């Protein structure tokens, strides 16, 4: 395997609505910053890969227009996934492994504000049995949360503590949309508006994006004094048949973690893509993280959740803490689909 590292990370200041910006205007400064941080001109990038969703943009092949943010002329080698940018990074990593590229630019972005996101997300589901019911993403998450609560796998107290810890951690994250939290006691006194979920259990709706540069071997060492080496990366999927799955578990995370080598060494930090409080518990359990691991020091998706970017941001947040020397070995998790259906796990290391 070729040694490949994340060498640069940039993200937008996430907010509820970037109404005055189109997708190109929103992501272009982020891409520019990611390239500038390593002093790279666009001609030095071998491969460009993005993650975004036409269902959010309201337009077929919407990513083609966003390529204006990269500058695709003269022609560049480029690809796109209709998924979170974490899977775009996976594609770029494979491209580098095959020897067809040494460097790659990856970005993921989403403007959720133009539509009704919980309704839009129902379009990911089975078209015969689920889609005609228009089940919204919050109620679907509630099905999972109630199973966990009633089976004693989590408590409302734990869920409120996850919400509190995440949004308090986000106070030091200049990109976060929600910073700071009411106390756990105050959260527990809030109505369960989406019974069994309360508002604080849900990620915010966010407009924003992220860009990352990865490079192989010597190039990585040249562009970054302490690259975040991708030691393992794998993604797996569970059934889309919600009624046939045990929703309190996500076996695909455990498989991806084993393939990525999560337990081949100690983990300092973990950034987990859990858009709902109870899902953090599922991911932690499947990853087998000890209580000492610092989880979501950035605040995680509960503090900012740009669709198609929030998973790639998890890789970026771990990488930046390795760049700075704050961490040496971290795990990043990204999810796609509803109720933790598909999952990617990556292990990043400084030394």
């Amino acid at each position, binding site marked *: 395997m070729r040694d490949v590292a994340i060498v640069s990370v940039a993200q937008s200041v996430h907010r509820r609505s970037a*109404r*005055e910006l189109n997708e190109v205007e929103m992501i272009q400064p982020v891409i520019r910053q990611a390239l500038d941080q390593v002093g790279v001109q666009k001609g030095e990038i071998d491969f460009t890969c993005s993650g975004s969703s036409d269902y959010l943009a*309201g337009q077929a092949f919407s990513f083609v227009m966003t390529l204006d943010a990269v500058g695709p002329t003269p022609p560049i080698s480029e690809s796109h996934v209709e998924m979170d940018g974490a899977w775009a990074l996976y594609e770029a990593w494979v491209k580098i492994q095959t020897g067809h590229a040494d460097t790659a630019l990856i970005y993921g972005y989403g403007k959720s504000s133009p539509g*009704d996101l*919980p*309704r839009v997300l129902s379009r990911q589901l089975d*078209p*015969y*049995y*689920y889609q*005609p*019911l*228009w*089940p*919204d993403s*919050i*109620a*679907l*998450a*509630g*099905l*999972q*949360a*109630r*199973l966990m609560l*009633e089976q004693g796998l989590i408590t409302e107290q734990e869920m409120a503590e996850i919400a509190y810890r995440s949004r308090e951690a986000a106070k030091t994250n200049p990109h976060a949309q929600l910073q700071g939290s009411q106390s756990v006691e105050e959260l527990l006194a809030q109505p369960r*508006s*989406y*019974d*069994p*979920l309360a508002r604080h259990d849900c990620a915010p709706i966010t407009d924003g994006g992220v860009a990352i540069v990865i490079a192989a071997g010597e190039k990585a060492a040249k562009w970054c004094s302490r690259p975040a080496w991708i030691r393992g990366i794998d993604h797996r999927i569970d*059934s889309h*048949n*919600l*009624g*046939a799955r045990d*929703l309190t578990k996500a076996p695909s995370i455990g498989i991806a973690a084993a393939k990525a080598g999560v337990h081949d060494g100690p983990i300092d930090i973990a950034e987990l893509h859990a858009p709902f409080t109870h899902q953090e518990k599922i991911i932690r359990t499947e990853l087998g993280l000890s209580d000492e691991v610092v989880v979501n020091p950035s605040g995680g998706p509960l503090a900012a959740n740009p669709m198609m970017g929030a998973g790639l941001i998890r890789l970026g947040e771990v990488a930046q803490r390795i760049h700075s020397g704050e961490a040496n070995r971290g795990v990043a998790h990204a999810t796609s689909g509803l109720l933790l259906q598909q999952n990617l796990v990556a292990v990043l290391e400084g030394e």
Partner: protein
Amino acid sequence: MGEPLELLSAPLVIEYPFNRTTGPVIGAFLTGLRDQRVVGIEGDDRRVVCPPVEYDPHTGSPLTDLVAVGTEGVVQTWAWVETVREGQPLQQPHALALILLDGADTAMLHVVDCGSPDALSTGDRVRIRWAEERSGSICDIECFERVGGEQ
């Protein structure tokens, strides 16, 4: 310059007017609903998957053995939908639920008309309320309602 720009926006409604061919398994289920019958399918392990799937969830082999299941079942889990969205089966607040029909081993996603979240508990028995006009769609089930429950 200096004046804040007025932000212009225009509505855009996307529709995907597909007609899909549902095939012998999904088609049998949807046709059954039109006739007020519910069918599942036997997996390789003899467990009954309902709604039926074309391929075994574990082995991936094609499945063909359709079996009748009940029109009543048990609520496995549920969530309250206070803000009803366009297109949802009920236009008043209701529960989204996973329901294990009698004779089935996997749960069906649908909605329960029960008035308030205080009126529903996991484990409650519910039965199908059929739509008056049925066309071979999951929406031929208008909703579920509690067995013996007050509306």
